[in-house]
């Protein structure tokens, strides 16, 4: 077994009646998932979708995502999630960039989909809208009688999905994964966390975020039940916490923010979370004081930090059995599976053990390429002794105990008044302040065109009267004098990208506007 479609075939024959996906009160058994996916694939082939084509998914978090993904994969095409939280311009760009002629959507996205339709895109076929002359309804798909149309054979080297992330040029870039790289990560993560048929996996991430592959692929690999958490739960953490209890979630995987939001909920002590075995997190650093607090609430669960950009799925992992004792940032752990890691300086020479450098990664879970962008693909790769490494752009160092520590993004290293400053280090310092929930630091142009460090921060409680001079003196105690932010701006929440990461570009725009 080595393709993502085989995951579905295999689980359907092993556990046909077991619930595969659950969303709100609706469920799909493995047999139903298989049938719906196959019928969608048959339809896609009938409208001309061929092996290697791309098919778009314009859905929020809903049950349809499950058979949309597997239906597209069974048709031999790769799925491309559009971002329902992004504007139509961005989605139209993605549709043009990878030539999406077929889009799968649903009635709940009608208004947004119509906005997208007003833009220039290659879209010709639409699945999922009711009462629309330009769309085929789900009922039509599921009532098709013809199973005869043979579906193409899917090979490990075929492309499986393309996830778009923000590019530094302002245009999103498409990260192309094959069945082989997607499958390799599904297998690795299922093995490492011993996910099994009896597990109930919470899928918190939207499908345009690689975190979702744990539910959609690792979960299906072991015939587990995957609970798709819908958007209202994502927005309201009180309801989300109840859901973990009510659905007896045993495996959780999300960005740290989602977990941090639980900390001010009283239900954290009232509800029973005994089913929770694993709390996995990825995407950005988890401030250690908050992590410790949550671990104290859920002592029966093991926590794990999974690290790696979307380009490689995951490359290191750290398992935490006990809450960390100090407020030091936790490490990103050791290499996952057969992943090989190099740490290099600016001249691509390996640094001495313990020194900081850029992390290069060689792994079977690595992407094939950036879609339609050979220059970008070439510049992101590094060849050494016949091996291809991906340049992560992450600064790390190896510790005495063999674990790696994440030091920040290479491009978050700035020079202000001649001093080299790690903006991520300033964030990490602010996170340690007991009344700070989140912080994000940027550099903008100050007086005389000199760099000015500005920290945005979110208080733990919404109504706080924390004086910024208290933050300043806290920074003075913990940071080099040249790294002290000259301004602290309080926010109710930090802007985030569609994938839940802090949107530094947006903060820079905010700051530029303010200065005008």
């Amino acid at each position, binding site marked *: 077994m080595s393709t993502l479609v085989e995951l579905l075939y295999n689980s359907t024959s092993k556990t046909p009646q077991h619930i595969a996906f659950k969303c709100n009160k609706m469920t799909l058994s493995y047999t139903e998932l298989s049938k719906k996916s196959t019928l969608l694939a048959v339809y896609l082939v009938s409208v001309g979708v061929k092996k290697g084509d791309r098919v778009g998914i314009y859905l929020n978090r809903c049950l349809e995502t499950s058979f949309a993904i597997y239906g597209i994969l069974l048709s031999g095409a790769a799925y491309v999630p559009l971002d*329902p939280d992004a504007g139509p311009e961005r989605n139209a760009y993605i549709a043009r960039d990878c030539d999406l002629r077929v889009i799968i959507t649903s009635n709940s996205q009608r208004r947004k989909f119509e906005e997208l339709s007003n833009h220039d895109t290659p879209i010709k076929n639409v699945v999922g809208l009711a009462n629309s002359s330009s769309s085929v309804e789900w009922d039509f798909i599921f009532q098709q009688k013809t199973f005869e149309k043979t579906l193409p054979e899917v090979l490990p080297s075929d492309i499986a999905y393309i996830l778009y992330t923000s590019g530094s040029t302002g245009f999103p870039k498409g990260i192309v994964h094959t069945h082989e790289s997607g499958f390799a990560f599904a297998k690795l993560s299922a093995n490492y966390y011993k996910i099994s048929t009896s597990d109930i996996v919470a899928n918190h991430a939207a499908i345009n975020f690689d975190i979702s592959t744990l539910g959609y692929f690792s979960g299906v690999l072991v015939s587990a039940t995957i609970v798709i958490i819908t958007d*209202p739960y994502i927005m*309201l953490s009180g309801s989300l916490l109840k859901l973990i209890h009510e659905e007896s979630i045993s495996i959780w995987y999300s960005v740290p923010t989602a977990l941090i939001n639980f900390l*001010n*909920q*009283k239900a954290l002590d009232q509800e029973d979370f005994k089913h929770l075995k694993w709390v996995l997190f990825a995407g950005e650093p988890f401030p250690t004081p908050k992590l410790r607090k949550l671990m104290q609430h859920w002592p029966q669960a093991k926590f794990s930090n999974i690290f790696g950009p979307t380009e490689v799925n995951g490359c290191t992992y750290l398992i935490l059995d006990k809450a960390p004792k100090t407020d030091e940032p936790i490490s990103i752990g050791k290499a996952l599976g057969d992943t090989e890691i190099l740490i290099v300086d600016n001249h691509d020479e390996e640094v001495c053990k313990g020194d900081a450098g850029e992390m290069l990664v060689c792994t079977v879970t690595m992407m094939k390429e950036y879609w339609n962008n050979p220059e970008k693909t070439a510049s992101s790769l590094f060849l050494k002794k016949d091996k291809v490494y991906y340049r992560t752009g992450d600064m790390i160092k190896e510790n005495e105990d063999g674990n790696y520590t994440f030091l920040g993004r290479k491009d978050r290293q700035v020079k202000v008044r001649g001093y080299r400053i790690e903006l991520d280090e300033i964030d990490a310092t602010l996170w340690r302040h007991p009344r700070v929930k989140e912080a994000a630091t940027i550099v903008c142009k100050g007086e005389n065109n000199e760099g000015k460090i500005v920290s945005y921060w979110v208080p733990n409680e919404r*109504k706080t009267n924390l004086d910024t001079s208290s933050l300043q003196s806290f920074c003075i105690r913990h940071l080099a004098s040249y790294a002290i932010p000259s301004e602290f701006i309080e926010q*109710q929440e930090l*802007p985030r990208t569609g994938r839940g990461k802090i949107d530094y570009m947006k903060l820079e725009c905010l700051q530029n506007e303010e200065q005008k």
Partner: protein
Amino acid sequence: MKQIISNYIVENLISKPDIEIGSDDDLLTTGLLDSLSIMKLVGFIEKEFDITIPPEDMLIENFISLNAMHNYLESTKNSD
């Protein structure tokens, strides 16, 4: 009360003046509001109606629609 909230959502959160929000329209599933706009909305309601919304009241049933918010705000008045 519903009108004030509806005006705030239309003018400040989705900035599309031509959209009309029905009292029972699902604001959370259709993508009208996202996490950031929910936080802004809560801040606005607290200021506008001079109340404090505790974290444990951040529930779907209290914020799914204009009617839900209305009922929730009424219930907080009664319990005072």
